[in-house]
């Protein structure tokens, strides 16, 4: 059984006047250890897929199984526990807490865990070392460059050792050289067996993925792991 199993996922946003179909009967299976790139034009449903996969937004219909857990069968607080134990988020805008320094930001997911202060610090230092930012651990986000902030965000996503990392345009606001080093870092993590799902519209990132799916109008239009005819959108 696939590590992530998304079956007939639908998401419709309803406003006063009209309905917008963000995901349309989307079905994808993702194996453990995959570095999956989710690509596609703006409005194709990439970010919606990521929020649903991240347990942040309930689908209109369909099922999402991660490691055999039907995540939308979980209650609200259990879903929060799932996010803490299974997921690491890397956001496009880094989303670091401005009044916490790099180490404290990295330790955030551990704040609600029953671990000693020393253990939390050890775990944070370990991942900061991994992303090459241990010497900058005491700096506030405002004192770090964009690339450094992205590395802190990656360290934060890694600190609790989650089986799955979800990244939304992590290189979207970085220059080419910095983007490359960040993608190298993701690649290294993947080489160590980390499952990563990354949303991006940057084609230069494509070579780093070992599988790419392209979304169009809320369904899978292309999948590098499957023959094109087999994944063509129904509409």
């Amino acid at each position, binding site marked *: 059984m696939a590590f992530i199993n998304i079956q007939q996922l639908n998401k419709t946003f309803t406003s006063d006047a009209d309905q917008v179909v963000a995901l349309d009967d989307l079905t994808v299976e993702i194996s453990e250890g995959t570095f999956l790139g989710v690509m596609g034009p703006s409005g194709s449903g990439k970010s919606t897929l990521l*929020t649903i996969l991240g347990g942040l937004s309930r689908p209109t219909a369909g099922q999402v199984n991660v490691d055999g857990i039907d995540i939308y069968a979980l209650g609200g*607080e259990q879903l929060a526990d799932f*996010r803490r134990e299974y997921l690491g988020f890397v956001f496009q805008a880094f989303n670091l807490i401005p009044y916490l320094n790099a180490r404290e930001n990295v330790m*955030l997911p551990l704040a609600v865990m029953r671990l000693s202060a020393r253990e*939390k610090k050890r775990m944070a230092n370990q991942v900061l070392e991994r992303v090459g930012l241990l010497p900058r651990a005491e700096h506030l986000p405002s004192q770090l460059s964009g690339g450094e902030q992205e590395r802190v965000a990656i360290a934060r996503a890694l600190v609790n050792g989650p089986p799955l990392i979800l990244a939304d345009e992590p290189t979207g606001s970085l220059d080419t050289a910095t983007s490359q080093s960040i993608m190298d870092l993701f690649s290294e993590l993947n080489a160590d067996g980390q499952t990563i799902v990354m949303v991006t519209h940057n084609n230069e990132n494509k070579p780093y993925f070992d599988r790419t799916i392209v979304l169009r109008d809320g369904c899978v239009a292309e999948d590098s792991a499957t023959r094109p005819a087999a994944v063509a959108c129904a509409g």
Partner: protein
Amino acid sequence: MTLESIVLNNLRRRKGRMVFLVAGLLIGVATVVTLISLSNALTADVQHKMEHYGANILITPRSDDLSLSYGGITLGGVSVDSREIRQADLAQIMTIPNSRNIAAVAPKVLGAVEIGSERVLLMGVEVDKEFQLKKWWSVQGEPVTDDGQIVAGQSVANALGLQVGDELVLRDRPFRVSGILNKTGSQDDHLLIASLPVVQQLLGKPGTVSLVEVAALCGDCPVTDMVNQISTALPGVDVSAIQQVVKTRMHALDQFRSFSLAIAAVVILIGALVVFVTMMSAVNERTREIGIFRALGFRRGHVMRLILLESSLLSLLAGILGFFVGMGATRIILPLMSETHVALHWSPMLASLAVLLALVVGCLASFYPALHASRLDPTEALRAL
């Protein structure tokens, strides 16, 4: 890194934002502390003054016989010579458990004397104590300073045509009218007043008194207890509380307290509104941050705890500062509200109450903002996703 350290870091690095909340609550707590400490100090002041306001316990001989009326109070057996209170026994009054609440004990002997064709009530008093008890007495001339002097009530003076300095003979004993009591509107206007030993001798009642007025008062004095204690100490006499006086005094104090409490309640309500608005806007400003916490796996309860912890710490600070500011304000205002010097009492109870009040109001007013924060949709909060 714990929830507590997130809160402390936030407060340490974003001080400006929270000054408003602390100030709002601080003003509320300080006002309550000021009103309560003012109320306590003024109540103590009023009690102190009331102790000089007059008697509220009356000791009379036990009698089923004839009575004479004085001051609207029926005195048993005053006209019957066989029943009097022994003056030596009065020392027992100061042995009761509540003796420290006794401000004055004023014994007096009463008897009718004839001046020409008029019958007049003559009262012998311990002059110092009587004048201490009846602050409202004012005398034209001088009060009684020696055994040969007498003070006449206004009505008696008018009826007998007495002037200050006149000679007056009572039962063959000459007196000089040293003063005339200004009109009191009470039965004191119908009295002749001389010193106790002289009147006892004149009336043939040596070592006895007709009645004793006791001023024993403070707001929390158990007057009925004291009545029982005096009854036990002095068997064979009637001891009664003048309920009307006590009730009037207590009513005045209660009204003052009620007024203070009403003002305090309004100010605290305003303080709670300030906390509510400040916390609500803080939550709205931190929507994105709360979204991050939720995305990282914080439960709703964790988010609520973050907000409530923050408001508790700020409320604690506001409570402590509010107490000191309130006491400072009382120190400044008190001399303006009282003619006499009133001591300011630093009460640990009031300090605890101030801190507790700040905590309760701060947490209650922050509860809805905290609930609102915990209910934020993480995807709405994280627009980036």
